[in-house]
């Protein structure tokens, strides 16, 4: 096996990629689906409250806002600039904290506080920022809240639908880039006879297979990471997410190569992927409908890569919690190698016999 020859075939496939509709579709579909989900479920245009603070001292209020994940904070040194930013609707609100404000509050004085609200800001954001500011001042004062609010949630508490759809979108990235691209590339080479043209050079069929598999692995990994980033689901350990995604890409691409080896032509390839598509897609449905018996999802091969992606990216778990799933995914990938190699030898004889 020559790495140099594998690289030459892979480089050719990468160069031809932009001229292939499947390759382009693999790039566009996950991005398009992400936008569709975000538009449909509101996360794309979700208004995040934005506040500007001019802190003339070093108020604890500013420090608290910095710690808040759901509020965008911008610091200012000039009151005129802050006011202009709010007027331009670059910010929902602006707050000027004079020097010694915290001490004055604690001393029971009632210092003046300038708080600007943008006229075009979302009402929800105004309320969030106003209430948050009042709560923070009360914290500085050290006084208890005048009322105790008991929160009662209606419906099942859980992740929003846009988060639960992340596995669906990642699945499309994996299947399009990992299964379709290498599989269809292999079938096209068979149909056009270019595979046989390569095989009468020093290139061996196993080198072509590895190059196609690497193409799927690379593209599936990149597109899955891009999809997760677009969905703000890279988790708290991005490197671990990338590692999990690479394992997912390896399995997806191996499935694509297997389908490409089995299919004699494009029609058969699409029929095969469409038929097997239900089996591939099945585990993803269980993330959208968490009430369904989850053990059923484990019967399908892509569960063993979708579950680790879900846990590490969306749920923020460590990769150590999903090592068993990853081991099974790698095990399936390795088990498919001899099967693919056997079928590839048969494929070569069939091609030559045509």
């Amino acid at each position: 096996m020559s790495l140099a020859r594998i690289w030459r075939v892979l480089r050719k496939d990468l160069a031809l990629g932009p001229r292939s509709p499947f390759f382009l579709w693999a790039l566009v579909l996950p991005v398009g689906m992400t936008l569709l989900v975000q538009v449909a479920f509101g996360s794309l245009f979700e208004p995040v409250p934005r506040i500007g603070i001019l802190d003339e001292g070093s108020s604890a209020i500013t420090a608290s806002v910095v710690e808040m994940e759901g509020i965008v904070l911008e610091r200012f040194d000039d009151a005129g600039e802050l006011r202009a930013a709010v007027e331009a609707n670059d910010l929902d609100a602006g707050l000027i904290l004079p020097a010694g404000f915290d001490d004055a509050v604690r001393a029971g004085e009632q210092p003046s506080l300038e708080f600007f609200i943008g006229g075009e800001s979302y009402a929800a954001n105004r309320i969030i920022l106003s209430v948050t500011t009042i709560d923070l001042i009360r914290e500085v004062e050290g006084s208890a809240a005048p009322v105790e609010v008991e929160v009662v949630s209606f419906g099942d508490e859980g992740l929003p639908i846009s988060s639960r759809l992340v596995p669906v979108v990642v699945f499309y990235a994996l299947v399009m880039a990992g299964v379709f691209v290498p599989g269809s590339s292999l079938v096209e080479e068979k149909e056009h006879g270019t595979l046989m043209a390569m095989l009468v050079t020093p290139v061996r069929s196993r080198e072509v297979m590895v190059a196609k598999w690497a193409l799927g692995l690379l593209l599936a990994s990149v597109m899955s990471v891009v999809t997760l980033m677009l969905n703000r689901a890279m988790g708290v350990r991005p490197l671990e997410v990338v590692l999990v995604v690479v394992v997912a890409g390896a399995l997806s691409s191996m499935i694509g190569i297997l389908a490409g080896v089995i299919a004699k032509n494009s029609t058969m390839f699409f029929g095969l992927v469409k038929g097997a598509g239900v089996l591939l897609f099945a585990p993803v449905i269980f993330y959208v409908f968490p009430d369904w018996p989850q053990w059923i999802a484990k019967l399908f091969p892509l569960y063993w890569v979708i579950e680790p992606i879900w846990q590490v990216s969306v749920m923020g778990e460590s990769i150590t919690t999903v090592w068993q799933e990853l081991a099974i995914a790698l095990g399936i990938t390795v088990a498919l190698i001899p099967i693919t190699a056997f079928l590839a030898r048969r494929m070569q004889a069939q091609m030559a016999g045509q």
Partner: protein
Amino acid sequence: MTGPAIAVESLSYAYGSLEAVKGVSFDVQPGEILGFLGPNGAGKSTTIKMLTGQLTPKGGSARILGVDVALDDPEVQAQIGVCFEEKNLYLQMTALENLEFFASLFGIRDVDAMEVLRRVGLADRARDRVGNFSKGMRQRMMISRAFINKPKVLFLDEPTDGLDPVTSAAIRATIREEADRGAAVLLTTHDMFEADELSDRVAFINEGEIVALDTAESLKLKYGTRSVLVRLRDGDGVRQEHLPLGGGGSPARLAELAASPDLLTIHTEEATLEAIFIKLTGRGLEG
């Protein structure tokens, strides 16, 4: 290397129960062109597929440059060039990209692909996509791809099939150049004119077996009829007379006809390769 570039001994192959090649034996020396002549389905392409590693022989042996083809040795593959009957080029790539890619598979870094394209008359289309090429241009691309690694052994499967006479002649000239360079050429064709013009030796293959193998000249002498055809004016029409050479009353009759004022033409009746093939197999080459 001394000895034949291609050495085949009792080579056979079967597709299921159908015996496509039945124990053929032949060799091709460096610088020699061996024409493999036979109708469609005779076993020509199957033999080439075994020799180029596409099919594994079911029996017998074949050595390319002294190495058994069953070993599937990339080092041997690096020394061969193949022109398939099917035009299997990357249509989305330009002519130059096609050649450079295949050169890279052979591990050739300093390839002058433009020069190779110039040899087949495609230099001015080097940066055009092959998908936009005509059938003849694609065939010339196929030939140029087979030449890209300066192979020691060339397998050419119907290299001029379906081409116009001018393009065919140009391609035949480049094939001869390769043989003159020292390449052993195995040329399959069912075009008897091409085989006659290009081949140093000719093998007739029929139903998987080689029925004759020799120089075209020897085959013609061995299987042809030695006679002349004399055409004479006969009133408003033309009459013709066949005179066997080598004895009997023919010389006197030939002299008599040659002196006739009605004489139009005299031709030797040399047997064509196709006629010999029909004589040996009972079937034509186009079948």
